[in-house]
């Protein structure tokens, strides 16, 4: 964990309201893992005051580079869209725990919805690159709001894109896709981010088929390192911090 400076390599518009920023930051790129996040300082002034959390979208330790996919929401992300090549940004990271795949797992599925895709995509990619079966179910408001398909397919993931406009993003559709893969023995673990409905589905399926599954949470943050106790989330074991105990929680321990 370091409070580092990232140098902007590129900052481009993806689609819908999504952007992608690539930074050079050796220190953080060297140690970050799938599912971890960093805190960005979006302004050098007081507006916004607090840093904003973003999950690592992709990372390239050899090059010392990191990518983040972000959704334009409010003032912080608006200021991020203005960053250009060569600009410097303060980033604190890597933060939080990370996605892990059990030794004997042969295949996984990640379920990402909207900007939640940014948190799980890299896990699907890594799994595929390591030779596991890797299914990525990417859901969004419309076709344009589904990011990451290109590099996931390149890595060898099976990618299923579903969206509200085409009316194929309902939970029942996802359930039937997953159930058949699980029954085929392709998938032993599920990872979800970005949708409570998908989270509940993962919980149900995991109980039903006894899968060791995980969910990545988002919550407003101040410190990002477990000090302020501001980003808590109710678990079976009481309040836990999303930034320090999470952002990844076992599906068993959380209420959805």
């Amino acid at each position, binding site marked *: 964990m370091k409070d580092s400076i990232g140098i902007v390599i590129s900052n481009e518009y993806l689609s819908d309201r999504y952007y992608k920023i690539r930074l050079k930051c050796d220190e953080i790129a060297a140690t970050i893992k799938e599912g971890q996040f960093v805190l960005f300082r979006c302004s050098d002034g*007081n507006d*916004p*005051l607090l840093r904003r959390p973003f999950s690592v979208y992709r990372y390239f330790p050899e090059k010392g580079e990191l990518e983040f996919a972000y959704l334009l929401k409010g003032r912080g992300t608006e200021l991020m869209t203005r960053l250009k090549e060569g600009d410097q940004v303060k980033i*604190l990271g890597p933060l939080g725990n990370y996605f892990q795949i059990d030794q004997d797992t042969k295949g996984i599925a990640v379920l990402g919805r909207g900007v939640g895709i940014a948190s799980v995509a890299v896990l699907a990619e890594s799994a595929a690159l390591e030779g596991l079966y890797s299914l990525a179910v990417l859901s969004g408001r419309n076709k344009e709001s589904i990011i990451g398909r290109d590099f996931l397919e390149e890595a060898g993931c099976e990618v299923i894109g579903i969206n509200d406009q085409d009316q194929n993003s309902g939970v029942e559709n996802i359930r039937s896709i997953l159930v058949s893969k699980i029954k085929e023995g392709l998938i032993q673990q599920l990872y979800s981010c970005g949708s409570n409905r998908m989270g509940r589905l993962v919980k149900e399926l995991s109980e039903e088929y006894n899968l060791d599954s995980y969910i990545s949470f988002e919550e*407003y943050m101040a*410190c990002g390192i477990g*000090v*302020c106790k501001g980003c808590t989330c109710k678990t079976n074991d009481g309040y836990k911090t999303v930034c320090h105990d999470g952002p990844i929680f076992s599906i068993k321990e959380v209420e959805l």
Partner: protein
Amino acid sequence: MKPDTHVKIGNIVMKNPVMPASGTFGIELKELLDFNKLGAMLPKSITYKPKEGNPPRRIIETACGMLNAVGIQNKGIHYFLEHELEEYENFSSPLIISISGYSTEEFIEMVKLLHKRESVSGIELNISCPNLAVGGESFGMDPVATYDIVRAVRRHTDKAIIAKLTPNVGDITLIAKAAQEGGADAVSLINTVTAMAIDIKTRKPVLGNVTGGLSGPAIKPLAVRMVWEVANTITIPVIGVGGIMNANDAIEFIIAGASAVQVGTATYVTPAIMEEIITGVEEYMITYNVNSIEELRGSIIFDSSDNSCS
């Protein structure tokens, strides 16, 4: 010549006037901040029994500030003494423990326990937490309750006792006086300002606890005013807190009358900010030929001779 930045709070000698504000500092910071450089260490308030804290959401950013309603989530003093205290014992800076409670008895019990620990240099009484109110009001809103609680714990320790005051009062000097008369070695102010935000889409309060405490640069001008008023009223040291983001802010509080300062929200924004503040205060002292913090403290000048336009 290196200026003399030391200050004394009760019998604590601090090598510089900068310490964390309770609730914004914890052992997790040690990778990002050199604890040995701090004037003192001051972890998050603890309570007698474990406290779960408030339901989410607990924080929301507001204009140049943040609201929090954490509700002192902590594992209780026994857990703290057994498992957490020793972590701070690895560092050389004096350690001040902030305690909070629902009753005088709880405060007394905690002070007795802390009194026995050599590594604890001082105790801050958080009698002002807006997220932990007794009958809607914190002890720190009433001079008599303030006097009583300080007096009650004073009997049980000769370690430095600091009363942390709330700004949610009409006249903060009355509370400060009560703390001094009760036997406090110092007062710290201000705790957060009770405030609120509503989500206009859902029409619900943003915070699970409905109201919360406002901190950050937004409240600095209020904090400076209160520190100035209190420093003019009492003789024990005043510790200035509220919106300190950089060395200039810290200096402003000292000129207003603070002997030391606490840094809260700024640490979230920049984890190592206290190191920068310590250096910045020293640089200011060199630039402006100030030999000691004592010389700077309360050195506000009232002279309107050059009020003409330019």
